[in-house]
């Protein structure tokens, strides 16, 4: 595992990097509770396409969000090689379906560049920023909007 330490001012943080298709993303390590292999999910009726269903995580019912589909990337049916990252979003625990977890990255906040204007709205909603690492580009994901909007619940 390569550990890249970027020097500079700002808060240092640890991130978990993962891969969907040929793109790399990362989230704050503090929000990740565990990483587990893919198990077949029970589909939920009338749910958005990116919600793969629910699985049993030691007794808790855990919704699985296909992060690729959420970001608008092309996705394929999940296989045993796929990985579920269990993350905490607010009070909720959610499983994110990704292709593979690749790295733990150490960096400071000032290494993150703002998302360029080129990106479409969907992407800008999730991608907080970009940074370069060993010639690769990694997008920093914000988890706040990963779950579907809950107007339906309020109604």
């Amino acid at each position, binding site marked *: 595992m390569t550990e890249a330490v970027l020097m500079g001012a700002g808060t240092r943080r640890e991130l978990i990097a993962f891969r969907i298709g040929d793109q790399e993303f990362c989230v704050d390590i503090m929000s990740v509770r565990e990483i587990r292999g893919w198990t077949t999910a029970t589909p939920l009726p*009338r749910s958005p396409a990116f919600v793969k269903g629910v699985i049993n995580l030691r007794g808790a019912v855990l919704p699985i969000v296909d992060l690729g589909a959420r970001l608008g990337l092309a996705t394929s049916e999940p296989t045993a090689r796929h990985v579920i990252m269990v993350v905490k979003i607010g009070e909720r625990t959610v499983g994110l379906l990704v292709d593979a977890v690749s790295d733990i990255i150490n960096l400071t906040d000032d290494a993150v560049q703002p998302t360029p204007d080129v990106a479409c709205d969907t992407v800008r909603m999730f991608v907080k920023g970009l940074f370069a690492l060993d010639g690769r580009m990694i997008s920093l994901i914000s988890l706040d909007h990963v779950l579907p909007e809950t107007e339906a619940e309020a109604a």
Partner: protein
Amino acid sequence: MDPLESIKATFFQECDELLTDAEQGLLALEAGDTDPETINAVFRAVHSVKGGAGAFGLEDLIRFAHVFETVMDMLRSGEMHLTDDVAKTLLRASDVLADHVEAARTGGKVDEARSAPILAELQALAGHEGLDDDGDGGLDGGEIDFTPLTLSIEEDAAPLAPPVPEIPTAQVWEVYFRPRAEMYAKANDTALVLRELARLGKAEVVLDQSDLPTLDHLAAEHAYLSWTIRLETEADEASIREVFEFVEDDCDLTIAREGEEPAQAAPADDFDLAALLAKAHAAPSEPEAPAAVVEPPPAAAAEVDVAALIARAQEAAPIIEAAKPAEPPRAATPAAAAPPPAAAAAAAPAAPPTATIRVDLDRVDRLINAVGELVIQQAMLSQRVLESGLARSSDVALGLEDLELLTREIQDSVMAIRAQPVKSVFQRMPRLVREVADMVGKRVRLVMEGENTEVDKTVIERLSDPITHMLRNAIDHGLETPDERQEAGKGAEGTVKLAALHRGGRIVIEVSDDGKGINRKRVRGIAVNKGLIAEDAVLTDEEIDNLIFLPGFSTAETISDISGRGVGMDVVKRSIQALGGRISISSEPGKGSKFTMSLPLTLAVLDGMVLSASEQTLVAPLSNIVESLTPRSEDVHFIGGQDAVIRIRDTFVPLIDVGVSLGFRDAPIDPASGVAILVESEGGGKAALVVEAIQGQRQVVIKSLEANYQQVPGVAAATILGDGRVALILDVDSLVSNSRRKGGRPEKRMAAA
């Protein structure tokens, strides 16, 4: 939590218990109990509420409780006779007292319009009866009505006790006050007492610390200090003594006019338990204790944990039987065996430890959840072991069987922790009955049975509304007015019975009255008028009775505040069905009617039918299911293009393809190739759910979907099956109502069945 806040919270918890005690005592008195101990018990309860309120400075509560207490005191001393009217006033006063406590808890205000008349009535009772000693106690309603003229809400909390023949001029009193260790052990503080005393007049307080030993001889829990107070006041001796009310039994107290020979006033309580214990323990076992004491001893003593003290008392008393935890402290303190009521009230905070503990509900819930997981894991493990081909007689399989038994046992025990007697709901009902009876001008006696029947807390919380509604209904519609009753040859007072019992793994709540019963002819007429049934429908008596559960049905000719908005019984039925319960009614004209509702003992698990549809495993709550059948193609008809109905014994009910309804597939399966499950939803709407197969009946643990995700239409919750997969629990009501939105009104046809 702020320590004071937590003490306050405890106080309010105690208040609830005390108020219940008081109410029960008053009910017993109203029912004709003349045992002085019952009066004493009520007095003590009210007194303790007042005492606690005093500690927190809850002025309104104190004022009300004080007057209440005065009346109780007069009853106790025989100055006033207990009549029916007095008992009724006191009962209403206890309701208002509860309001005051609630207001103090929430920081709100009591409705003065409610509180003031009762306060006035109480004051009238106290004043009137106190002066008038003819002793017949015959207060009629008219007198009470007029007495509010004497009302002064702002009246000081000063005692309304009968005036003592004494000229209220300033006198000089000499008070000698020597607290014993018990006083500190009960968390009483000398400073508060002295401050209270100083309010009576000019006080000169002299501390006598001559008994204070040197630090190395000092026992932390002993009391060494005494005070002499020279008090210049207009108050009489009784008022001074009242200051010491709570500590009277735990101190040496003499009160005398200056120059008079002080009379020994302290009770002859020589058995100084704490002092003995302190002696016994201080020397050998606490060598470092004196060094640790930097505060003056009384302060240190005041911090002594009462429980610890009692625990030691238990150690010290060898006669203890472990099975009777409430007994030993009494045995150890014979002086407390027959305490005067006031002393008992003061001693209440230091009551012997009962065999219960208060636990945060969150912790219990966590435990229950964890055990739920354990059960599922255990089931998964068993399944895996079986699948792995191990013989049933192998050690592993046998061990798993034991494990299964053990897990069941743990689950039962854990559920029992959260189980509570229905008392907490029942005890609110007497008040409700009184209020409703007053409103509709009927005389009602409430009889309650099976208050100790236990049921899971999740169910308890939701019992209150249906019971309230059923009781209101029984009083408003079921019972006749006193005149009607007498015409019918019954006593003027009607009886409503509320009973709880366990039956077949469910809790059954029965509400019955001895009223006129259901007027079937009228019910039928209304149902026809409202188009709920066909005019020529042939219905059994039972079916007619149950028409009152149909939505939009109301039999009250005049719409009253209490019930009869036409949302009555169908709302009750719906809320009970939402809990997985059922409700039915039986009635006998002229003799009364009886509502019976049965509910599961817990909402944490559910009896369900495991189904498969579109390759998914689903669970339908058993409480919704009426029957299951294999549809024959000739019974399936189509209304228009898509909407199918099925004929079940001459009734057409809509067919709902579960797979399509949940969006798992686009085209419905041929009903004849699957299974139809006849379900009944809220309001009695029926439908047939079509699925591929029924897997079996199982008890499942209910898991929330909302916790991590959000509500899903058509799905009530989720569960985890033995294979570790999540299965969805169908929300039958929403499935049916979704289909009804496009379809007709199935309940019309239902009623005609």
